Every structure is written in structure tokens, then in C-alpha cells.
């Protein structure tokens, strides 16, 4: 039965819908796998065994009744990042301040998944409140990269990515504010997509930086990600920032892309993303990827986005500012942790003591940074200026997309580093987001696909593909073409190369 955990979501769905395999069997197989490897991987903060099996049983019953599957993914299990509200499971956001909190409502993404018959296995580990690039800032301990369990799985969505790489789930949902879906995908050899801002509802997504956050699909293949994208995407009247246009036809694009013909497509290589500060093998793998794209018929052009050099600085002003406001609600009054220093503590004292105890260092740093940047007297110099840089980045993208249909870069400057290596140096940690941040700033879609393994450490490297706003179709097309060609050339998907760093047979 462990064979079921090796299947892609598309393959598994096909077997479930043809009734060759039951959804309950599929769910049980994944639950067993979680039991087997998660003590080492620690991708999950909560495993919802009974609700998952019940949901799977419902899918089976409906199919037995002769009903059409609720969606192309009905019956397929999925791991959900613990930043999305689920009324039947705790939602901790990787923080002590929400330990055990059960929201009285469901995020729109969760509701759509359930309606589609997708089986939510549980909630995955993350950097606290989505702030981090390694999942080391989780209050519940880090997640371990299945490729090498002494290394980070990326962040903030390391749990979701690791669950895929460890075959604990064929699908996952992450959220991406500065790369939190894409960078983990890159360092775990999986696929992660950040949709156009507004393409997926944020209702029920506990806010980090409201103007940057997006939930997105994570999977081991491009087609699986596309299938999941179509389930969760689309307008939500409960989210004022959600776009009211049809979800781009990404499944179709992925299928067509897999045919491998990229003739007529111009691919822009961003000069500013790469070079000094990037691990040489990341650069080398990226160059190979470019060759491969060219061999598929694409035309490579070099584009310059000069303001990308300021993206990191602007991001680390905008994000903390919005965070300082978004996290103010965690004050021990209505939900979550309450720490009462003494019997007659005032509300103000309880708030301060609770937040001190309930938030980790990275969260506190960013809250204070944001409070500073928004202060009168500093607003114009910091937050105000950062928002202007945002405009400049958007213009750079617009100009670049005038010369190319998609842009590419390495997803991250390095492969997975060791746990503990950068956790005490915030600025060093922030550098992991260099390549991914610009797309969040402009609100344009971007994704990471496995590009290859670094020679020296054998660790995965990701290729980032970026498209114009609502341009997911061309993005998935290029990704699928690249994936198919790479797999064909290398004898199979990258993930198959995963040695048993877990010490547990896959």
C-alpha cells in the first residue's frame, strides 16, 4: 500500500475515481506514512486522522452512488499550512500565542478544498506567522528537510514542502509573502506556485503582510499544482482584494506545455538575480536549465530590472509595517494565550506579558521594526519610500515583460543550509528571499520547479519562472515543458533521487 504514496495527485485521483482504489485506502496509506516518518521530518503540527478518514469515506460513498467526482482531485489527500483557519483543527500559525486555538470558521481556501472532496490530512509546520525562510522560527521546533534531515526545508512553508518531499501527502497548500512557497519548493525539489495577488482568496489566511500574502498550490509535479490551483483559485466576495476574473486555464496550459514545444516564446533572464552571493552550483544548475529551455525552442533574452536591487530593503520595511498592525490583535483579550503576571495586573500589562511570552524573536523584531517605520517622523523616509520602490519594481517588470513572455532566475541563492546555521543572523536569513521578493512586491505570479541537484551537496536547486499579472497560463506552460524535458533527460522526476536521508524506506 505504500505504493499509493508514490503516486502523483493526478494518478491517485484517476485510481480513486475509477474505483480501483478507495479514498479511504489512499488516506490511510498517507496517514501511515506520516506515522512512519514524521517523527523525524516534523512536517505536521496536527494530524486530523478521524476527520480525514471521514471525509475520504464521504468521497467513496458519493462515488459508489454513481455521482460524478466533486472535482478532478476528489479523494486526494492534502497537507494544509497551519496559517489557514480550519474550524475542525487547531490553527497555530507556528506560534505559542495561538497554541490549540480552534477558529470558529473556515478559510475560503479550506472550504473550497472540502467542497472539492480534497481530504485534509492535517496542518503543517511553518515559521511563526509566516516570517522566516527556514521554518526554524516555528515555536514548535523546526521541520527537517527529507533530503538531509540536518538541513532546513526552507520557510516559511517548510512543513508543506517537506510533507511532499517525504511523500506524506501528494498535495499541499502554502502561502507566499516573500517566497515562502517557492523557496521551500526549491530546496526540497518540489513544485510551488505563488498566484497573481488576488488570484486566491485571503479570507481565513492569518495575515502577515496583507499586500503581499497569497495562498498557493504545492505539489511534486507541475500538473498536480495546476489541478490544485484550479480548485482553490477564483473570486471571493469576502476578500475585497480578490480579483473578479476566471481562474487562468492552468491545467490546460500544463498539459500543452508537457508536449515540450516552446518555440516562439521569449524567456527573459534577469541580470540582477544571480552572480555574486549565489552558490556557484546554483548558478551552474540555472545555466543548464537555460540551455534546456533553449533546446525546447525558446528564445533567451537578457533583461535588466535595476530596482530589484532595492527589493529586499523595501520588502523588509513594508512587511514589518503591515505585520506590526496585523499582529496587534493578539492581545490575550479574546482568544489565544493569556499570561497574567500578577493577580491585579492591568489589561495593558497582560497584553505586554502575553505578547512577550507568546511571540518568538523574529516576530518581535519585525513588529518593532514596523512600529518604527510607521512612526510619525519616520513614515516618509521608510514606509513611504518603500512603497515608491514598489512602484519602481512594478515598472521594471512591465518593461521586462515588454521584452519577454516570462522571466527566469534561480529561486534561491543557495541550496538548503544546515539547521542553526543562519538562525541567529537575521540579515543573512533575509538574503534567502532575494530572488522571490520582487514578484510579491509587484503582485505578479511566480513558481519554482525542480531544476537539478547541486553537485557537491546533492541538494535540490529550483528554477523560478515569473509571468505578468494573470499570466499563469504561460508560466505553467513553460514549467511543464521544462519539467517534462528535464525528467526525460534525467530518467525521471528529481524527487525520485531522494536518498533515504530519513533512514526509512520510501
Amino acid at each position, binding site marked *: 500500500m505504500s505504493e499509493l504514496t508514490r503516486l502523483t495527485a493526478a494518478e491517485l485521483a484517476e485510481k480513486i475515481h475509477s474505483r480501483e482504489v478507495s479514498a479511504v485506502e489512499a488516506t490511510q496509506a498517507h496517514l501511515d506514512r506520516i506515522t512512519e516518518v514524521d517523527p523525524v521530518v516534523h512536517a505536521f503540527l496536527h494530524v486530523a486522522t478521524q476527520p480525514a478518514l471521514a471525509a475520504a469515506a464521504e468521497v467513496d460513498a458519493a462515488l459508489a452512488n454513481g455521482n460524478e467526482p466533486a472535482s478532478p482531485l476528489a479523494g486526494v489527500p492534502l497537507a494544509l499550512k497551519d496559517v489557514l483557519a480550519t474550524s475542525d483543527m487547531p490553527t497555530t500559525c507556528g506560534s505559542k500565542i495561538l497554541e490549540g486555538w480552534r477558529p470558529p470558521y473556515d478559510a475560503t481556501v479550506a472550504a473550497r478544498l472540502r467542497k472539492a472532496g480534497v481530504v485534509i490530512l492535517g496542518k503543517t509546520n511553518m515559521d511563526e506567522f509566516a516570517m522566516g525562510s527556514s521554518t526554524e522560527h516555528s515555536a514548535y521546533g523546526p521541520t527537517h528537510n527529507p533530503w538531509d534531515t540536518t538541513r532546513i526545508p526552507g520557510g516559511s512553508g517548510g512543513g508543506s514542502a517537506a510533507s511532499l518531499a517525504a511523500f506524506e501527502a501528494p498535495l499541499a497548500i502554502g502561502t507566499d509573502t516573500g517566497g515562502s512557497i517557492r523557496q521551500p519548493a526549491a530546496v526540497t525539489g518540489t513544485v510551488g506556485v505563488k498566484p497573481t495577488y488576488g488570484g486566491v482568496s485571503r479570507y481565513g489566511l492569518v495575515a502577515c503582510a496583507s499586500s503581499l500574502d497569497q495562498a498557493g498550490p504545492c505539489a511534486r509535479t507541475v500538473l498536480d499544482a495546476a489541478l490544485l490551483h484550479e480548485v482553490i483559485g477564483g473570486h471571493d*466576495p469576502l476578500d475585497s482584494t480578490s480579483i473578479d476574473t476566471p481562474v487562468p486555464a492552468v491545467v490546460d496550459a500544463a498539459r500543452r506545455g508537457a508536449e515540450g514545444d516552446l518555440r516562439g516564446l521569449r524567456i527573459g533572464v534577469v541580470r540582477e538575480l544571480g552572480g555574486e552571493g549565489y552558490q556557484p552550483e546554483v548558478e551552474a544548475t540555472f545555466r543548464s536549465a537555460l540551455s534546456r529551455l533553449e533546446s525546447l525552442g525558446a528564445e533567451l533574452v537578457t533583461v535588466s530590472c535595476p530596482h530589484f536591487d532595492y527589493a529586499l530593503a523595501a520588502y523588509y520595511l513594508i512587511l514589518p509595517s503591515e505585520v506590526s498592525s496585523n499582529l496587534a490583535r493578539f492581545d490575550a483579550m479574546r482568544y489565544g494565550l493569556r499570561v497574567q503576571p500578577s493577580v491585579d495586573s*492591568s489589561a495593558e500589562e497582560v497584553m505586554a506579558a502575553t505578547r512577550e511570552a507568546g511571540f518568538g524573536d523574529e516576530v518581535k523584531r519585525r513588529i518593532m521594526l514596523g512600529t518604527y517605520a510607521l512612526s510619525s517622523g519616520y513614515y516618509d523616509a521608510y514606509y513611504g519610500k518603500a512603497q515608491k520602490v514598489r512602484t519602481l519594481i512594478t515598472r521594471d517588470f512591465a518593461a521586462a515583460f515588454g521584452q519577454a513572455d516570462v522571466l527566469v532566475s534561480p529561486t534561491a541563492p543557495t541550496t538548503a543550509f544546515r539547521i542553526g546555521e543562519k538562525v541567529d543572523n537575521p540579515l543573512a536569513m533575509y*538574503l534567502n528571499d532575494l530572488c522571490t521578493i520582487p514578484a510579491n512586491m509587484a503582485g505578479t505570479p511566480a513558481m519554482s520547479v525542480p531544476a537539478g541537484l547541486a553537485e557537491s551537496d546533492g541538494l535540490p536547486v529550483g528554477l523560478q519562472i515569473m509571468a505578468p499579472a494573470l499570466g499563469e497560463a504561460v508560466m505553467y506552460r513553460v514549467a511543464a515543458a521544462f519539467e517534462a524535458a528535464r525528467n526525460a533527460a534525467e530518467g525521471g522526476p528529481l524527487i525520485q533521487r531522494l536518498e533515504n536521508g530519513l533512514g526509512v524506506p520510501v
Partner: protein
Amino acid sequence: MPESTPDPASGAISRAEVAHLARLARLAVTEPELDRFAGQLDVILTAVARVGEVAADEIEPTSHAVPLTNVFRPDQIRPGLTQEQALSGAPASEQGRFQVPRILGEEA
């Protein structure tokens, strides 16, 4: 951008300012934390201050990537939470209300 270890002697933000920020943000940081954070914040602020290098005055700030306007909902009632659901996470409640410690508040 070069990595650097925090140097409290550099000037972007002082320890006192960090203490003030912590108060504003309702974070009861400890003295050792204050020392550590002051150094780290100082380094970060110095790094992010480079946004000042580019942004010229005539550039419009972007607060939204997505050019939406006039998103409204009709004035119609939508079912909400029950009292029980609303209070379900409350650390303390009484008579259907959230119970909170004494508020210092506005009045003397």
C-alpha cells in the same frame, strides 16, 4: 549585501528607542532581549534605509499591486457567529461577554 555582526555603536537606532518601540507595541521585552534586539534592529535599519537612494519625490507610492476600486457589498444581513462560537476562544468570559483585566484607560 554584506553580512555583518550587530554593532551597537552604530547609529540608526538606540537602545532607548527600541525600548520605546517595545512599549508602543505592547511587548514586555527583557533587558537582555533589549540589548540583542537593539543591535539587530540597528543593522537591519541601516540596510533597509537604502530605499532612500532611489525613491524620488515624484514617484507615486503603490499600496496595491492590483488596480481594483469600488469593491462594495450590499447592505444585507449575512449569518454570523453564535455567542458560543464568538466566545469559544476566550481566555475568560462572563454573562456572554469577554472578561478582560482592569483597563487603565482614558479616564483618570
